[in-house]
């Protein structure tokens, strides 16, 4: 696996080549980052067509703004930010309501999903129900693997805000996915014996 620094070095080299007139360089840069850009757009918008439009918008924005890349953040972080802005633009302009695409085929055995609240579809649905700010924070940190610092740069908010959004988003997902019951009956997996004080306190 290529170390992150080496990945960024390659991205920077491609960007420089593009600015130097290499007609293929930007396509190669997009190719290297396309998967991440698509994942961010799809998880943020939920709709594949909207996500495709957002990725295209982002690529063109990046192409036009290539000479304005300052180099203070990684190229992938810069591209992440452009995709996020493209997604937010679409949400604001079109009032996109995130939807979860239906699976192409039903599960081979319905018993595999009945009662199983950890299926990918359930998680995606729950993610789509989050407020967009929390959803973006979780997409960046938990799904894209960005550090809180990098996510802060991408989202343009302080690190404390990113952490708050991540934790609040995860808490909401915990409720939605029934990992945490809110009806007074503790979930079996997370029950604390009565009278037992939690050890160590919260982390």
């Amino acid at each position, binding site marked *: 696996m290529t170390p992150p620094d080496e990945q960024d070095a390659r991205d920077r080299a491609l960007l420089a080549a593009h600015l130097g007139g290499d007609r293929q360089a930007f396509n190669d840069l997009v190719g290297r980052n*396309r998967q991440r850009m*698509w994942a961010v757009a799809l998880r943020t918008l939920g709709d594949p067509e909207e996500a495709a439009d957002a990725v295209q918008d982002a690529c063109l924005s990046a192409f036009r703004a290539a000479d304005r890349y300052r180099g203070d953040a990684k190229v992938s972080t810069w591209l992440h930010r452009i995709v996020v802005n493209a997604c937010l633009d679409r949400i604001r302009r079109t009032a996109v309501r995130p939807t979860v695409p239906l699976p192409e085929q039903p599960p081979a055995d319905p018993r595999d999903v009945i009662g199983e609240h950890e299926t990918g579809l359930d998680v995606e649905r729950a993610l789509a129900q989050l407020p967009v700010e929390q959803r973006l924070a979780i997409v960046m940190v*938990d799904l894209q693997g960005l550090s809180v610092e990098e996510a802060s740069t991408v989202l343009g908010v302080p690190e404390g805000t990113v952490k708050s959004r991540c934790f609040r988003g*995860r*808490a909401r997902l915990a409720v939605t996915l029934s990992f945490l019951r809110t009806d007074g009956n503790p979930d079996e997996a997370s029950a*604390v014996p009565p009278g037992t004080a939690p050890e160590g306190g919260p982390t």
Partner: protein
Amino acid sequence: MSHLDTDALADVLAGLGQPAHLDECADCQTSLTQLSTAMASVTVALAELPDPVVPAHLVERLDAALASERGEQSMAEAPAPSGTPALIAPARSATVTPIDVKSSGLPSWTKAAGGLAVAAGLVVGVVLVANKGGRTRDATSSASAEIARNDTGRAYTKDRAALSGELKALLKGNAPRQEAAPALGAAPLNPTSQQSAKADTRALSDVDALAPLRGKEGLAACLTSLSDPADPGIPRALDYGTFEGQPALLVILPSAKPNTVLAFFVGPACSAADSHLLYYEKVDVP
């Protein structure tokens, strides 16, 4: 005294402060522990989500959009053409077809490039349209233009060097009709050639797919989607074939730059409203 809600407990777990109430309330402490455990499960569930696969059509779409963007930037630096339509001499393997084309405003192919506004110097002229009455409900002004129409069935690709040679041959009228792309009603190919038979099957299906663009009206509507009323011009040539394996109509437009043409590959669904642009490239044809 009100207990801490889920958001407040989440902030505690995020290390963003600890309300005094938490120190005094066993129930909230219990809730905090339960939430911490549940959120750990959420983190695991999120980590197990598979990465979404980039659709193949998106890859092609991005390539086309970037190619189009490069073309717009190049053309924005070039002087605007005179806009005088040129008569095209019939190519040896081409048929000259009078086409009536109506102007319909800004090029819709720019939608493929992210909805960009057309620059004033953009050279995307296709057909000269005498829109004397402006766009009214009854305005149907149009002009005929003669365009060299080829039907080679050629399998075009993004290889720029190859594309340059192919377009040059096409414009000179030397482009051979593909052995595997007979016109409808033509004599059948030699059935002993397996390769040509396979290509024949492919070409016939391609011909069928492009049927909507073979008629006058369909073709005219498609060319309209590539027109720019501010910069009129007519195609130098057309060719029915495939692009990267997909049925495609090649439209060769003039460029302001000498020895250069603009090659547009559009899909079978090309219409006045949407060109269904598959690919665009600016090609040198010395």
